[in-house]
């Protein structure tokens, strides 16, 4: 295999002086500075939290929710496919017998540790029952204790599809 | 046209009674029987080439040879009277009109195989025939014909005959399922043995024969095999009870020598088609045989070999006639409903396949059929054929498969029109 020698950059006097490069950089910075000072309506940066984002799309993976059947009961049958698919190992499920005749099995415990979750969406993909979704549009969750970041079954069921999203 | 051997006393009023039947020659073969050795009897049956009349058509004499000789275990004769094949109703004529002929046949066969206990396994629904048989057997015991000795001591040979009623399962007409049922188990066919051998009843040797086969034996014993082979064709000698059903003028059971043309039988004995309708198809030997179209019926000859040659089988000789008014989709649905109901459920292909075909045809009849359903039925028939323990599933594949293939146009029209192609 032959070797091709490439000429090294930055060997010229102009390059070694650095000043021209700094000046051309500053020129770009100043142009933006002036434009933004004159008219700040085009600014990308938002004054969050006073200004909330409006560009969250239907495909945005927010905090999870557990879906419900037509009779308003939980869809999840505790098959553990989500926990199996989860790369962060952040889903903690305990199954129990379901006695209302709708199905055989349901989760007694269904916890998701949001601090461990990497929001990859694999759980949604893995679910054979469409029982877990990440379409709440919730991107912000705050708490002052670690345990409060663990969402229980009840909390997950209480979450709903974001109103900003189109109907499914 | 008829040749009456088994049916010779059918026309006599009250021929089921011992005194009437005796006047007309029943038990006449026994005198000669007692002069013969058992081996001579089997040889005579072998030479007569008497074939099993239950549908298989295997040589009866060969079957008897499979019984082990000089075996210390008791042996059993089991008469298969579980006649449940749709379109077949010949055995019941024998049991109804001439039960003593059957007893005579049992005596001859038991004598030949040194059997002292014979069972008649009768279809559960044939309650009145079981009663008739029991009355006849009681008469025979009372008259000393069977029991501790035969014919009041004419032969020192103990023989007991027991009638056992089935519980109404078609599959118990399959010999190994019949034995399972007789043993008190669920009627599931057994795996076929790897070499030719007799059947086993509670581990003891047994042989299973159809009613008509057994009823044919006295003739061979009394008049010799030569007299029997005079009738019929060289390969299918003798006679068979053919049953005609469907829209013919004279449906019924007729005893014929093998070798008659099917269309002649339908037109002469059957009296031709009712109301001048056109013949559309015939299922030749009980519904388990591939269907014959009108063209094929014109060519068909009633013996085993000729029927195989045209791609069907003689089966039990129960011909189901179908006229031009019948819709073949409904014929198929009717037949598959029967099989779906009667599959014993042992082997997967039959258990699930019969139900599947039934579901597809149900859909077709309820106007939800698709053209692909026809291929699906053929596909399932393929899976049913030759992949199960007994011949139930291949029979389903034969009849349903043949209807779908031979009347495919009609299925297609039916599905496309969303209603019966030849519906009224």
């Amino acid at each position, binding site marked *: 295999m032959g070797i091709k020698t490439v000429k090294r950059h930055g060997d010229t006097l102009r390059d070694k002086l650095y000043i021209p490069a700094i000046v051309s950089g500053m020129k770009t910075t100043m142009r933006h500075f002036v434009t933004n000072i004159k008219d700040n309506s085009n600014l990308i940066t938002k004054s969050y939290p006073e200004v909330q984002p409006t560009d969250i799309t239907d495909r945005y993976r927010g905090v999870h929710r557990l879906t419900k059947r037509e009779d308003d009961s939980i869809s999840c049958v505790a*098959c553990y496919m989500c926990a199996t698919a989860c790369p962060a190992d952040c889903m903690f499920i305990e199954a*129990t017998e379901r006695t209302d005749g709708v199905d*055989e099995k349901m989760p007694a415990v269904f916890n998701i540790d949001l601090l461990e979750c990497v929001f990859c969406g694999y759980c949604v993909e893995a679910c054979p029952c469409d029982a877990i979704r990440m379409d709440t549009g919730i991107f912000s969750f705050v708490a002052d204790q670690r345990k409060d970041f663990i969402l229980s079954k009840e909390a997950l069921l209480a979450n709903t599809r974001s109103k900003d999203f189109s109907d499914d | 046209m008829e040749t009456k051997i088994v049916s010779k006393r059918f026309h006599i009023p009250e021929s089921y009674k011992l005194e009437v039947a005796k006047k007309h020659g029943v038990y006449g073969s026994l005198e000669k029987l007692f002069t013969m050795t058992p081996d001579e009897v089997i040889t005579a049956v072998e030479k007569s080439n008497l074939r099993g009349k239950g549908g298989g058509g295997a040589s009866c004499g060969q079957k008897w040879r499979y019984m082990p000789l000089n075996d210390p275990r008791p042996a059993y004769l089991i008469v298969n009277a579980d006649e449940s094949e749709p379109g077949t109703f010949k055995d019941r004529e024998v049991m109804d009109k001439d039960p003593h002929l059957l007893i005579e046949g049992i005596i001859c066969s038991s004598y030949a195989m040194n059997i002292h206990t014979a069972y008649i396994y009768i279809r559960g629904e044939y309650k009145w025939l079981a009663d008739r048989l029991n009355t006849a057997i009681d008469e025979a015991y009372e008259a000393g014909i069977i029991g501790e000795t035969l014919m009041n001591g004419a032969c020192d040979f103990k023989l007991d005959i027991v009638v056992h009623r089935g519980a109404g399962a078609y599959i118990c007409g399959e010999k190994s399922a019949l034995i399972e049922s007789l043993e008190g188990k669920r009627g599931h066919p057994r795996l076929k043995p790897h070499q030719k051998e007799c059947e086993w009843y509670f581990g003891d040797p047994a042989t299973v024969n159809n009613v008509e086969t057994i009823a044919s034996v006295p003739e061979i014993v009394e008049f010799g095999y030569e007299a029997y082979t005079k009738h019929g064709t060289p390969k299918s000698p003798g006679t068979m009870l053919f049953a005609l059903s469907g829209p013919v003028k004279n449906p019924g059971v007729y005893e014929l020598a093998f070798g008659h043309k099917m269309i002649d039988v339908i037109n002469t004995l059957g009296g031709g088609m009712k109301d001048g309708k056109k013949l559309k198809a015939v299922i030749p030997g009980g519904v388990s045989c591939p269907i014959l179209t009108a063209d094929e019926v014109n060519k068909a000859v009633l013996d085993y070999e000729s029927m195989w040659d045209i791609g069907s089988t003689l089966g039990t000789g129960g011909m189901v006639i179908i006229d031009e008014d019948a819709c073949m989709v409904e014929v198929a649905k009717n037949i598959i409903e029967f099989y779906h109901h009667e*599959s*014993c459920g042992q082997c997967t292909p039959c*258990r699930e396949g019969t139900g599947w075909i039934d579901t597809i045809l149900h859909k077709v009849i309820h106007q939800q059929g698709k053209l692909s359903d026809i291929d699906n039925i053929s596909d399932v028939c393929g899976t049913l054929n030759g*992949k199960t323990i007994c011949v139930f599933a291949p029979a389903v594949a034969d009849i349903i498969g043949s209807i779908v293939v031979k009347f495919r146009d009609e299925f297609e029209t039916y599905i496309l029109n969303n209603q019966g192609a030849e519906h009224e």
Partner: protein
Amino acid sequence: MSNIVNIVIDGKEVEAEKGAVLIDYLFKQDIDIPHFCYHPALGTDGNCRMCMVEIEGSKRPQISCDTPVKEGMVVRTQGENIEQVRRDILELELINHPVDCPTCDQAGECKLQDYYMAGGFYESRLEAESKVKAKKAVDLGKNVMLDQERCVLCTRCTRFTDEITHTNELGIFSRADHSVISTFPGQELESDYSMNIVDLCPVGALTSKDFRFNQRVWFLESFEAICSGCSKGCSIHVDHKKEKYKDDQIFRFRPREDHDVNGYFICDDGRLSYKDENDNRLNDASINQETVSTKEALTNIADVLTANPNDTLLLVSPFLSNEELALIKEYTLNNGTTLSGYSPQYYDESFADDMLRTSDRSPNRAGMMALRINENEKDFNELLSQKKVIVVIENSYFEDKAELFKDKKVILFSSKDTKVKEFANTVLPVASFLEKDGSYTNSESVTQHIKSGIRKNAPVGTLTSLWKAIESLSKEKA
């Protein structure tokens, strides 16, 4: 040997025993022929029709479970034709199957799933609404749950109750695709071996009520061990799992095929004895009822043992492994303490039967006898009255006989939290039966080895390690 014949399997010439069942031979060759109804313990039934192979010279594919090996036989287990046949039959198995894998405990070890993944993959040609419905979640008694819809009617379970336990509780009811397995009316499963039908069931029709919904099987880890429920020492698989933020836990025992010991099965009591392993554990060392560190307890024991060797009786038990017994026996021989293995409390005549269960409900009495450890009652009682220091090692003899400890110094080594603790001067927890390695000799003199796979968060020391610590502490003092 003349019994060996040459046959060709998938183009490879091999030697096989004449007359052997072909499917058995294929298993031995590591050819996994799909099958439901065949099981080596139950023999051929031939109903599932899955194990079909092509045999040159026969018109149709043949079921390998009912094909004897013959000289010159040419067998094909692969190829388009035979795979199509299998796929067709599998399709039929599945048309009335509810495909409720998410709620089914068998998922992950289900033959239907395996075969579908191996060669199924077809578009469904049957609508779900036309599937035949049957009963789900039927409690058959004896810890077995039945789901009639998932059943493939292989009849392994009915054949097990007919031919193995001879209890005949199960039968097939109805016909065709309405056929279902059930107990006879008014009857429940009653055999002590009933739960074996859960293992026998190739699909999720029969599941264990005890294991029901507890864990998905693909999370479980497994190691080979023996059951300590009686002196038969049945070979088992121990299925356990250390879940995140939890401790290692045993979820179930399964029988392990072992023709020297138990064959294919284990009894229900043995199977459920995994609960004893998890329950009622002794965790803390104590001296005179006060919790101390292991180190302190060990020093205390070493002190007592070195002070009065001639006045000390060590009572071991048939629950200890051969290695542990040998270690303690050697110790007693070296320093003059006395050893007994007296343990009549483990005998229970009512437990024995004519299948697997024996009357001695301890796993290693034969090993104890082989080491000539004295079990004599008279000798034991004599020693008990003489000796002032009693060291009880994993032996429950004193459970309801604490009055015998009067005026004695008692040292207790135990994996279980027992009442004896209250009467003991020094208490030291030890690793339980399945938490340690060791070998055990069963009543038929078969020695089996356990290599434990359990990884507790805070493992308790094994008797061997603790005893060695005591020995070295004693030596320091001397």
